[in-house]
């Protein structure tokens, strides 16, 4: 990553930190939403951009964390952040380990279809299980953080922390092995790397960061619904990763910010905003194979 990107990221992070001081409630909430989308998109980039795993199960972990928080808060009265965050992530980690272990028995298009199927299964379970409010979802009776500015600060800190973690994982020795697996798994296996274990580790790390994003979403808005873990959500975050430019971490965050903006303003203007998102997805594939990051770096892929 070049110096200009690093400086730009620092400037954006600093600007985001100042938002609550200068902006009104709406924009603070909006900036918080964008930051959560950025965490979510960057976490998928670890899987797709570095590991070559086109997972459609990613939203499942986002929604699962939110449901776990609702369960802990409403059912057991455990809402305080130091208790609820580790418990939610533990739950997400266990489920991700199970789903990852099963789905990573396959690869390529099988993996795409199988992750989609498991997402759909979780969606049905949460949609139909008694006591979870069906498609309306659940309100969270007491949130981990009540004060609005504190929530914002927590989300900001999570974004910075998640980015630094993902960058360390993706650009360190582990990430290099992961990229090697994406390019030629057989060769990496021959070199003695337990490739499936590497992929599973990346899958779980990505799921945990996605779970963090879902936890923050539930903290910010105070409710969860099954649409958050549906396959459309998984598809949408895939669009953000590709639009931004996979395998760059900052690109997907740029894509997430853009899609969140489009979603918000287009949904207010027309009921056919899905076509706009669909057109963006199609145009990305046909015109911008390296995404916006590719344009910024002058390599169009």
């Amino acid at each position, binding site marked *: 990553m070049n110096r200009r990107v690093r400086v730009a990221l620092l400037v954006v992070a600093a600007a985001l930190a100042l938002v609550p001081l200068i902006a009104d409630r709406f924009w603070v909430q909006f900036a918080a939403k964008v930051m959560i989308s950025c965490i979510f998109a960057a976490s998928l980039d670890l899987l797709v951009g570095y590991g070559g795993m086109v997972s459609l199960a990613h939203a499942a972990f986002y929604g699962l964390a939110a449901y776990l928080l609702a369960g802990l808060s409403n059912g057991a009265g455990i809402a305080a952040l130091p208790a609820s965050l580790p418990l939610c992530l533990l739950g997400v980690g266990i489920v991700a380990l199970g789903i990852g272990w099963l789905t990573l028995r396959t690869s390529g298009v099988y993996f795409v279809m199988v992750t989609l199927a498991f997402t*759909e299964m979780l969606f049905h379970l949460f949609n139909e299980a008694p006591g979870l409010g069906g498609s309306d979802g659940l309100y969270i009776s007491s949130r981990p953080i009540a004060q609005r500015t504190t929530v914002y600060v927590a989300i900001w800190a999570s974004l910075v922390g998640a980015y630094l973690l993902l960058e360390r994982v993706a650009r360190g020795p582990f990430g290099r092995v992961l990229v090697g697996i994406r390019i030629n798994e057989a060769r990496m296996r021959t070199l003695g790397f337990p490739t499936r274990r590497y992929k599973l580790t990346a899958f779980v790390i990505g799921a945990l960061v996605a779970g963090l994003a879902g936890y923050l979403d539930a903290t910010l808005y105070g409710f969860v619904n099954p649409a958050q873990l549906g396959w459309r959500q998984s598809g949408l975050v895939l669009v953000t990763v590709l639009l931004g430019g996979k395998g760059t971490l900052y690109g997907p965050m740029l894509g997430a910010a853009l899609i969140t903006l489009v979603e918000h303003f287009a949904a207010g203007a027309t009921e056919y905003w899905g076509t706009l998102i669909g057109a963006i997805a199609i145009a990305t*594939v046909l015109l911008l194979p390296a995404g916006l990051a590719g344009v910024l770096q002058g390599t169009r892929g």
Partner: protein
Amino acid sequence: MLDGEMTLSLFALQLLNGVEYGLLLFLVASGLTLIFGVLGVLNFAHGSFYMLGAYLAYWIAARSGSLFVAMLIGVPMMLLVGWVVERLAISRLYSRDHLSHVLLTYGLVLVLNDLQRFLFGSDVHGVPTPRPFSFGIALGEAQTWSAYRAFTSTICLAIALAIRQVLLGTRFGMRVRAGATDSEMVEALGIDVRRLLSILFAAGTALAAFAGMLAAPLTTVYPGMGEGVLIVSFVVVVIGGIGSVKGAFVGALLVGIADTFGKVLLPGVSSAIVYAVMAAVLLWRPRGFFGQAAR
């Protein structure tokens, strides 16, 4: 089903319903698996064609008074839709990775969903069972099986046999099978592969839409109906082995029967049964029943 006891006639009824659902799924899944096998494209928009077929059936049947007229008009329309989509969008994917396929066809799903809302609205519609088949066939003393379901099963079975006949017994089918194995070689032999791919995609589209038309009186017509079928068809293809039509047939029947019995025996978690079956197959054979080695 009192006291958890299942009478023979009820069992037969559920089995027939499961087979009928499975055969309907086969129409969707066979196109999906062939399009992947030959074109190499994973098509998320396949379920949207099923949905469009169902909406066309509702719309034309409501105006002409006959579902059969709707099928006669609707199937050629969907052949055309498939041909246009292949030429404009899918054909640009042939040299790309499956991530591009997922993204572009996901974009198509969103666009086609909006098209459906724009053309037909967001309401749920019922389609009356065609008059010649609106009676029940007696099974034992207490159960009847809908004659329309019997009709649907027969048609689907006939189509399955026709697909088999075309693939194994005609020059076109031979080229399709050759294309699935090595499309470069087929091209080198002077066969117009591009045209072959267009025809195949259009046929798959029309098959999915026809399945939607057949299902319309059984399931009602509603927004998002295509996505449910798409995902279950993926499960079918994963179980059967991607690219294998035989696998799609076996997988579709297995899923149809498992789902139908799941709804009766385990009503609380019925929707999870299908995925449990898939997980079991994955544990046992990660490439499905008839899957080939990596391509």
